């Protein structure tokens, strides 16, 4: 893993991370098994782009079958952070990641880890729906075909489209071009495409910000259904969306460096979503969620 210098950086306030609460929530949710084990264990994670620190020293655990939301102002590093979970930052020239991300206890950035396999297990859905200019069927079939999952392909595609709550709308026009679908349908198609390769985790970076309210509601309903089978991490600018869908919420903010050399993102508070939106522990979180900033 690449390192970066921390010279000239100021010490930041330790983020409020209430792991005891997390544990309590995990055991409280034992009836349906969600939140009972850890998928990602992040410690001391910092990310730099061409030597410029973007995100500093994050510690956080993501629980299995939980929906975990990252919120915060622009430039706080939340998108940078979510991209660490499937090594998308590897694709950005000059990006270095320092610290550790354990995935089921194994170093995600270990030299023996295949980034392609990482991205199969940890799928991603982006802000703007990005279907291939191919048929609906081919969009969903693409991943399984590339990965050699060719047995019972039709059933796999139907299952993925059903899981993404899209099957009923497209089952009679699977051969039509995916670009003919509405924005909301295209986004659900992208979710189906991610599901088709049987991932463990689905990362969503602003998945509904380009959608109208009805399509947004459908995506949010879908997130509630998908969390039974998948662990979901979502970045959102829409705080009410985080409040509606997430079990846990992490608030990131921007910190100016004392030496004037720039700014970087930090994790301020990570706790149960209900706590973050009713009684946050850090004043910066309070100011952000109540809109009393700026």
């Amino acid at each position: 893993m690449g390192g970066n210098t921390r010279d000239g950086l100021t010490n930041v306030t330790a983020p409020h991370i209430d792991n005891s609460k997390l544990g309590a929530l995990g055991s409280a949710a034992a009836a349906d098994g969600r939140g009972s084990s850890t998928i990602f264990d992040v410690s001391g994670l910092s990310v730099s782009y061409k030597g410029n620190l973007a995100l500093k020293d994050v510690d956080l655990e993501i629980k299995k079958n939980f929906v975990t939301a990252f919120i915060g102002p622009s430039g706080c590093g939340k998108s940078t952070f979510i991209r660490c979970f499937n090594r998308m930052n590897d694709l950005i020239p000059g990006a270095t990641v320092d610290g550790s991300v354990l995935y089921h206890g194994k170093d995600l950035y270990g030299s023996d880890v295949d980034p392609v396999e990482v991205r199969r297990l940890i799928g991603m859905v982006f802000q703007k729906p990005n279907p291939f200019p191919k048929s609906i069927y081919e969009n969903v079939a693409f991943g399984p075909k590339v990965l050699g999952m060719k047995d019972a392909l039709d059933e796999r595609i139907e299952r993925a489209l059903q899981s993404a709550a899209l099957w009923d709308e497209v089952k009679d026009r699977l051969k039509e071009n995916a670009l003919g679908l509405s924005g909301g349908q295209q986004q659900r198609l992208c979710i189906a495409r991610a599901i088709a390769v049987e991932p463990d985790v689905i990362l969503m970076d602003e998945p509904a910000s380009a959608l109208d309210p009805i399509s947004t509601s459908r995506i949010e309903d879908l997130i509630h259904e998908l969390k039974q089978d998948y662990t979901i991490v979502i970045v959102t600018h829409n705080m009410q969306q985080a409040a509606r869908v997430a079990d846990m919420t992490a608030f990131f903010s921007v910190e100016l460096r004392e030496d004037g050399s720039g700014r970087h993102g930090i994790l301020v508070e990570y706790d149960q979503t209900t706590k973050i939106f009713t009684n946050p522990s850090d004043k910066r979180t309070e100011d952000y969620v109540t809109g009393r900033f700026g």
Partner: protein
Amino acid sequence: MARVEFQHSLDALEATLQEQGELVLRALRGAVDVLGSQDVELCDEVIAFDDEVDARYHGIEKSVGELLAQQSPVATDLRLVLAILHDSIHLERIGDQCVTIAKLTKLAAELEPRHDLVEGLTEMGERAAEMVRIALDSFSARDVERAHSLVELDELIDRTNRRVSDQVLTMANTPGTQEWGMRMIVVARCIERIGDNAVDIGEQTAFVVTGEFHEFTDASH
């Protein structure tokens, strides 16, 4: 400060709550006065005045609904909005207790009162009014310590209530005083409940400030 309009709405909501509180205090002072004076006209005024208190409550309930729908308050803002709604309900109930006191006083107006008991009830009423005042002020100042002081004051009212009840029981065999005594025992109960409502408002103050709701005292013990 961002969300200026929202803040104005919150301020207006809290001002309406304090206004409702002042009206309730007027009703309570009237209800305490009639205990001694047995002034039937004033009783009618106290009874009619409750419409004013109810109107403020309905106004607050409507505004809270609109704020929740339009502004999606969270964190301290959410706690404040919820606390104001609770406090408004508590104040509305205090208003109802004043009406009951006035109605009972009216019914007992032709009966011979026991002056020592009237003094006890008046003392209870004045303590209750003091408690409502403290509850409103400590909410406004977000003063949890002062809100907590309501528990001790409530104990004084409870004690007087028990004393009045015991005295009324001794009147059970005295011909001609039973009806008055029966009515006044309910009056004492009404005042005792007002003290409880003031403590309830104090608990909401602590909820707004600390983010956690705890009853100041456990009524089951």
